[in-house]
């Protein structure tokens, strides 16, 4: 299959402007500036069925169309580069290797929604990636592609990078906006939605890095070409972040709808140590786990994964073999959300910590049978009852791990210790 988002693997130094331009770079922008109206751009992206790659899978063209036409306030585009979902590492490679692809996507998005300012909200740890993107912005500015009078069109866009300070919640659309405004990243109540009242009270589009880097290709080659890749309702090239117990973990560009089985056993080279597959989290740690049986049947696109009972999220595929202690795994997930809950809403603030404490007890052999129902109760009480979905991001894994691997949880309780560890707490599995 032709590499689209990961062209850098075939084209050395694609991150440099001259190389990028030599391979058709910024031609989509030229088309968007001179041959298309903003409406036509939005319609093209709508027709392409491009869906947000940040995890929520919302149709990008539809999101853009929510921006009020002729807004009296400035319109902002925010590029969400706060990639922090556990098991996800696509944006960082794009920022390192194809920054101009992202910049071109940003510029086209700005043209579509009438914005003259883009903020790239980048996670604080991305120091190197920030340098790479900044270099590319500087290059593009020097070449008249960013700033005033882009390509002589009279259109103007400035791009600023804002570095985060290390909180997962800043990747949540409205938490990002609060943080961008210099406030504590407490996600906002919706309505009002960012399209009406986003950054600094103005209409704002927030798009993920990967979403934006799809845009130039759609403008260049058309919505019909794009829809021909993968399932029509959930099409396009997709970056899969394969991690865990596979022989060849890494970033893979594959068409949407690619079978998970082939991802693990084909491109992923099979299970590490040729052991049995125990489970797969398909979309970053926030989503329900698939048992081995479920995983082998599912195709990796938004609708198929949803139909199978989980969500594709960021396509951070985490593979677990038979030696994985699922209690320990879930405890690790809970630790993350406990640590990253912003603490604004009561159920999430209190529930995440409670779940981690219960799972720590279970893992360390102090658990009780009634704890299993309590874990479900807490999860049910958290889910859907908060401003953002961070609470759901823990309750979904809990509600899938506990029933799907119940016997393992019960073993911990019965034995009074983790069966995967010896009495000293060391892993009982030979490395």
């Amino acid at each position, binding site marked *: 299959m032709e590499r689209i988002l990961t062209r850098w693997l075939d084209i050395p130094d694609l991150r440099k402007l001259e190389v990028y331009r030599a391979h058709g770079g910024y031609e989509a922008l030229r088309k968007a500036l001179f041959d298309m109206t903003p409406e036509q751009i939005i319609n093209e992206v709508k027709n392409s069925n491009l869906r947000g790659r940040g995890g929520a899978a919302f149709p990008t063209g539809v999101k853009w169309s929510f921006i009020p036409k002729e807004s009296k306030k400035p319109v902002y585009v925010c590029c969400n580069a706060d990639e922090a979902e556990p098991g996800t590492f696509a944006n960082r490679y794009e920022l390192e290797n194809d920054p101009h692809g992202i910049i071109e996507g940003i510029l086209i998005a700005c043209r579509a929604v009438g914005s003259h300012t883009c903020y790239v909200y980048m996670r604080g740890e991305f120091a190197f990636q920030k340098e790479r993107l900044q270099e590319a912005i500087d290059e593009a500015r020097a070449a008249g592609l960013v700033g005033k009078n882009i390509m002589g069109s009279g259109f103007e866009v400035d791009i600023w990078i804002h570095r985060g300070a290390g909180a997962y919640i800043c990747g949540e659309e409205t938490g990002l906006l609060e943080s961008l405004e210099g406030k504590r990243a407490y996600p906002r*109540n919706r309505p009002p939605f960012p399209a009406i009242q986003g950054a600094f009270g103005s209409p704002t589009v927030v798009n993920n890095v990967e979403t934006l880097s799809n845009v130039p290709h759609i403008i260049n080659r058309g919505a019909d070409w794009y829809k021909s890749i993968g399932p029509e309702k959930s099409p396009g090239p997709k970056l899969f972040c394969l991690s865990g117990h596979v022989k060849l973990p890494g970033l893979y560009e594959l068409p949407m709808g690619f079978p998970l089985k082939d991802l693990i056993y084909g491109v992923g080279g099979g299970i590490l140590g040729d052991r049995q597959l125990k489970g797969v989290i398909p979309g970053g740690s926030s989503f329900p786990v698939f048992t081995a049986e479920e995983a082998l049947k599912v195709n990796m696109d938004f609708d198929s994964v949803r139909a199978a009972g989980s969500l594709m999220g960021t396509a951070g595929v985490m593979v677990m073999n038979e030696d994985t202690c699922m209690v320990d795994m879930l405890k690790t997930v809970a630790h993350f959300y*406990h640590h990253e809950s912003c*603490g604004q809403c*009561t*159920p999430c*603030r*209190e529930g*995440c910590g409670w779940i981690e404490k219960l799972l720590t007890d279970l893992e360390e052999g102090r658990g009780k049978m009634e704890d299993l129902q309590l874990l479900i109760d807490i999860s049910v009480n958290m889910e*859907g*009852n908060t401003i953002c979905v961070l609470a759901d991001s823990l309750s979904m894994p809990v509600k899938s791990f506990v029933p799907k691997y119940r016997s393992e949880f019960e073993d911990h309780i019965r034995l009074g210790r983790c069966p995967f560890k010896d009495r000293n707490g060391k892993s009982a599995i030979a490395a």
Partner: protein
Amino acid sequence: MPKLTIDGKEVDAPDGINVIEAAELLGIEIPHYCYHPALSVPGNCRMCLVEIEKAPKLQISCNTKVTEGMVVHTQSAKTKAAQRAVLEFLLINHPIDCPVCDQAGECKLQDYYMEYDDQPSRFPLEKKVRKGKAIPIGSDVMLDQERCVLCARCTRFFDEVTHTSELAIFERGDHNEIDIYPGHPVNNKYAGNVIDICPVGALTEKDFRFRMRVWYLHRATSVCGGCERGCAIDIHHQRGRIYRYKPRYNPEVNSYWMCDEGRHHFTTLQNETRLTAPLVQQGEHLVPEEWSVAARRVASQIESLKKSFGPRSIGAIIGAQATNEEAFALKRLMLDTVGSDRIAMVSYTPPGLSGDDNFLIRANKNPNTRGLEAMGIAPARFDEFAKTVAAGELKMLIAMRADLVTVMGETEFIRDFGPLDYLVLIDTDANETAQMANQVLPIGAYPETNGSFTNFKGRVQRLSQAFSPPGDALTGIEAIARLGRALDGAEHASEAGAIFTQLAASEPAFAGISFDALMPYGASLKTAT
């Protein structure tokens, strides 16, 4: 006006209000912590989640605008489950130290637990997140971070109302805590309001802590006498002692708030110097006596001066601390019974107090200057008084709630009023003037009286008596009625409502206002600005 249904009852709600407010129109309380009508809506506590038909999940009623045909269920199984869940979450890390918590009895965690939760804890006590306790954070505010439900009412009050932003939320997740910035304590004149709006025991009042369990306190609706704003208050008292003032909502005057000076105003009313019996000067000393004796003596003094020098040899000065009813009763006593038109007002503010700010505090510390003006009692010109005294025209002065020695200075007082034949002081305390008076008549402070104040904008608000004046002291209007009866033998009105009715009938500025209509938010003078 969208029409919506809440718990099967239809209501026409004004456009743009939220479900919690619409429910209130029907008398349905939706429990909540973070929502406060005078602050922004953060939607963080999740206590007000309700089931709304056609919504995919429960909605917070504080941030959901009413729409036509909306159907809300505040008693459904789903709503109740969410309420229980939120309370359970709120309580897992709460220290449950109610027995030693000052908020007990007026705590929304206690109240809502009993009403909406009422289940045993599923969380072991030893696993709670521990935070700071009994931290003085400035002003009169004590902080207990463990009891805090992080509703952010206090941070929003300092951000949005006082714009001083002393408090913020620090840390993250279940380690979130309210705190000040290091080295920058709470320092504004409205800090006490965060104690009122804190729904739990996280913020308590340093002065009030451990003085009195709140369930022993009685409440009287009244008006703060600390300045001419006249913030509506509730007086919390027990056995003749005031323990605290709490602001009472009045959209026309103070919204939900009051200043810290006003909050502590009652402390100036409970001094050791309070008078508990009429006093008569005998040689160097003031000696207690019966009211009947005192009133008769003052009356006979008035009668004899009237005979010798005419009624205008008697004058009166009334302080703008007096209620409308006291001022009116004294004015009528002077005009109708004594027959003198010499009555003036003194509106005195001691030095060193806060000046006007652009919120509630006023530089004039008299609660009723406007009311006295409105009934035609002009400010006293002491130079004019001095002339009449010097000329032998004024022989006797009745000073009511007017500590003239403090107002004028001792030297000036002796110079101007020293030649008087007779000085009567009607007041609450044995102040400087009392030492100079021939006769002292004890009356109650404003919390001890029924009546009304007129604030600087012409808003007339009602005071309800919290308890009787101490000892043999009478209310101001009773004292005036006593003097009146001693003078002419007739009954004089001594009940605030009756006096106010006369006042409204005879003073044009007060026309059309009825005493009953003064509750709860008062009424405006015709000439109000």
